[in-house]
């Protein structure tokens, strides 16, 4: 199942709607990284609210997306991790180190806005 990627201002929003296979996840990663350049996006939001399970491959892919997008000039936020999923993740030692997280889409957008402003001030 392909994940729709929406463009909203300077940001790309990928909203995962159902459980994804490993191939789907890799496809999402490639599509997102390609579009960061195409749309000159400054932020990427991956919404995982609909996921009630996250395995190590999913977590690694999300982390890879964040690191790759950063290399291409965009900050990534993972939003909507469910409490149970968060608990299971830390128990398995999958903690998304170095990747920004936020409660939901709204918080994710706020976070990127703040980050973005900082960058413009510095630039």
């Amino acid at each position, binding site marked *: 199942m392909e994940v729709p990627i929406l463009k909203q201002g300077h940001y790309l929003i990928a909203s995962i709607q159902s459980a994804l296979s490993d191939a789907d996840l890799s496809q999402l990663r490639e599509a997102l990284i390609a579009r960061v350049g195409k749309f000159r996006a400054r932020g990427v939001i991956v919404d995982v609210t609909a996921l009630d399970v996250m395995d190590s491959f999913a977590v690694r892919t999300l982390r890879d997306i964040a690191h790759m997008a950063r290399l291409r000039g965009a900050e990534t936020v993972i939003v909507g991790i469910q*409490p149970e*999923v968060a608990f299971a*993740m*830390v*128990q398995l030692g999958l*903690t*998304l180190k170095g990747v920004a*997280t936020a*409660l939901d889409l709204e*918080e994710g957008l706020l976070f990127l806005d703040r980050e973005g402003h900082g960058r413009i001030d510095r630039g």
Partner: protein
Amino acid sequence: MSKKDVPPQPDSLATPESTQGLLRELVAHLRQNRTQLREEWARRITRAQLLTAMTEEEIFAEATSVYDNYVEALETGTFEALQAYARNLSERIIPRGVETHEVVGIVLLLRDVLARSLFAKYHEDFTKLNRILDAYEPAANRIANTVAVGFVQERERIIRQQQEAIRELSTPVLQVRERLLILPIIGVIDPQRNRQLTEQLLRAIRTNRAKVVVIDITGVAAMDSNVANQLVQTVEASRLLGATVIVTGLSPEIAQTLVTIGVDLSEMATVGDLQGGIEEAERLLGYKVVPYAEAAQQA
């Protein structure tokens, strides 16, 4: 005209059927002398000063139903009804402060009372008495066991229930400002409590849309590497939901222990006390608390 005239008859064979027959005879005897044996038992309960939490009438009423259930268990050889009754009885008497030794005591008293009446009835025919007792004793012991176990199980169930309730009560998640939660932890953190505490916190973060959480562990007396790692997990899980965690109130002893045993807490934001933690949280949230007079002056 006793033993020779009435030789051991069909039930002389030590087969299960003969045991059944003896038990039937026994039950008939117990039914016949119900009133008298029951009274004798209730008298002995009072004399032994058992069940002091209950009035005499209550003791007699309970004694009657225990007696009937007892005889029924002897008759049918099945213990389900008795088990259910024991649970039900325990449920009623545990809140009134009846102790385990009392429950075991009264059941053993009943066993003795019944055994005495058997002695009285069969004292002329020693062989028969022996066989009756052979049939009676295992069943009676099993009944005593069933009742005692039922009582203890019920007590343990209540204790577990209360433990659960205390755990729930002991970890309140409080909102002190918009998007700021505090979680004061008091007492011992074990894996089960940690799990419950983390789940509660994560749920609260979601419902209150919290951005910052202050976990205060002033009330935690000791910490080992296990507990410390569990705390790190809680912090990590909160971060996955987009909340920053500040830990406050690490005592000097805990700080020394953690450094000595080499637990890595570099991922964790720590502030000395709860006040400092809340101030830091307010700073992160963009609040600035100013005394009223000063604010008026500035305006």
